[in-house]
């Protein structure tokens, strides 16, 4: 039989821990290409723009059914990135200004939607938008070790965890599959085009996967953590230098490590130190920022030598 302490951990903390780790690793992996292409702020903008999409999905269907909300969020994130490139191109406005215009407008629309529609009272709470709903992911684990270790048990995990798990498996596979055209497209677009590697197609596919991951992570992790995980691990890994493959793996690793240690720190360590848990999403985001700070400090001393 499984001891009670472990059982409590499995019930309350296992699913959120898994969710945050899987999402963190995937976002770190995909964030590395956003950072390489200098599109980090676009990820930021998309993560903020998810909110009006969720609200629209909620208002149209009148319920918190996951699928319409997912579609709404995906559409809003896509709309944001399309609007940014449209404004940059046709309004001839500096990209950072265009990003500022688009994401604040969409976020304002989302806030108004939540406040005015009464969705706030249901469960689209604005605080959850910021720091996610990790604590709502609980799991009823089986009672024996044999059942716990059987493959079928995996499917009893919460839906969010399964989706994030699927993305965590799919993303590295897809990246490995398109590795050569993707690197060519990132570094030397002309070369990639002349070699017939279809750089635009490959980049769009990776960008679409990034959008899906942002949307899938949003509900559990909240907007702040999504942005932090897209940028901080990749930035930290970028400071280490070295080859591209190493950088991409390091970024995923930094992301996953922030996820594991941040979550455990907030929910297991904090109660013994201050007598209560602290916000897990915020802790993971802070930890990823701390990793970046440490890497930047080391980077400085190394370049000064």
């Amino acid at each position, binding site marked *: 039989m499984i001891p009670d302490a472990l059982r409590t951990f499995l019930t309350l903390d296992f699913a959120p821990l898994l969710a945050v780790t899987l999402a963190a690793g995937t976002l770190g992996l995909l964030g590395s290409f956003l950072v390489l292409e200098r599109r*980090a702020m676009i990820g*930021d903008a998309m993560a903020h723009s998810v909110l009006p999409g969720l609200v629209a999905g909620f208002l149209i269907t009148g319920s918190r059914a996951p699928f319409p909300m997912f579609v709404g969020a995906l559409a809003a994130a896509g709309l944001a990135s399309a609007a940014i490139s449209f404004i940059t191109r046709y309004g001839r*406005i500096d990209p950072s*200004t265009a990003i500022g215009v688009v994401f604040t407008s969409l976020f304002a629309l989302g*806030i108004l939607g939540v406040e005015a529609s009464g969705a706030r009272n249901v469960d689209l709470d604005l605080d959850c938008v910021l720091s996610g709903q990790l604590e709502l992911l609980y799991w009823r684990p089986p009672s024996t070790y044999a059942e716990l270790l059987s493959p079928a048990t995996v499917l009893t995990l919460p839906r969010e965890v399964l989706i994030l798990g699927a993305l965590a498996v799919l993303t590295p596979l897809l990246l490995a599959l398109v590795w050569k055209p993707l690197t060519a497209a990132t570094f030397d677009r002309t070369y990639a085009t002349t070699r017939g590697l279809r750089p635009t197609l490959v980049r769009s596919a990776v960008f679409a996967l990034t959008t899906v991951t942002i949307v899938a992570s949003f509900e559990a992790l909240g907007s702040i953590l999504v942005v932090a995980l897209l940028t901080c691990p990749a930035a930290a890994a*970028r400071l280490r230098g070295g080859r591209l493959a190493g950088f991409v793996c390091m970024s995923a690793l930094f992301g996953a490590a922030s996820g594991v240690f941040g979550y455990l720190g907030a929910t297991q360590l904090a109660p013994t130190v201050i007598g209560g848990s*602290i916000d897990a999403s915020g802790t993971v985001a802070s930890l990823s*920022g*701390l990793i970046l700070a440490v890497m930047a400090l080391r980077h400085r001393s190394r370049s000064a030598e």
Partner: protein
Amino acid sequence: MIDTATGSAAALSPVELAEKWFEVVSLGGGHNTNVVLAGVTLLGLAAGMVGVFSMLKKQSLVADAFAHASLAGVGAAFLLHGAFFAGGGRRNMAVLLLGAALSGSLAVAAISWLGRRTRLPADTATAAVSSASFGLGIVLLSLARRISGADQAGLDGLIFGSAASMTRGDAQLMAAVAGIVLIAVLGASAPLTAAAFNERFARVRGLPVGFIEALLAALVAAITIAGLQAVGMLLVVAMLVIPPATARLWTRRVPGLLTLSGLLGASAAFLGASVSAILPNAPAGALIILVSAASFAISLIAAPHRGLVAGLIRQRAVRHRARAEAHRPPRPIAGTAPGTRAGTGGGTST
């Protein structure tokens, strides 16, 4: 301000709402409402003008990082204040805003440090610092709640903005800060312009460029802090970004940009805040930003040179000319070559 529940507001007819709105707009909505309305409008005016210089320096999103990072300072100030004045349930807005200013400035310093010490692109550094420090802010707030069991109601207002819960003193403080920023921008617009367009030229002319840049940063910070309560830290950057971007679609000269951007900012703030005063559950910050966004969208379509309609008309004219050229009978080679080249050249550049 109207404190009715959602149900009774829904029962109001459009005519009644319009009457109520006219009452608020003609300053008959009570003294408190008028002070908030005036303060927000002044803030919109000042933010629109300061934002022009941030846009010209391509630093629009630095204000966003400043605003996000200010949450960490608010949390820290809340913790410290709670530690020193235990049991005092009253939030002290001045202390919170001081913390916000400190941590926001730290974040901006961290972004420029990352940019100088490493080769990270500016937007990566901005996004990383702003999200990580906002995360830290959320942790500090949850810590404060854990330790002191403090009431967080006033702090939520700083994140999402709640003009309705501002006291008269809060609104007067906001108006005073906005007024000072306005005077500073008007007084220093010449050196700010010089430093924004051509830093090296400004240096050669003997202008204190470092000081001017610090002044701009301080003005952006002052606007952000002043707008925290009314608009909220997640949206206050929009007051600095959208009006200048809209004005840029209409004009390229700095005096015109400043005037237009200031007017757009002020009118969006006035409209948003007055509509918010008659509708319950419609936060002023979000409404102000949406009015601004609408003016941007209209300008993007209709502006004379950069607008989409103007662009389409130009494109058609070029196509028409090209077609006319194509149907002309061939002339001797010496004559055609420069003519056609000029025609196609004009076509691709527009």
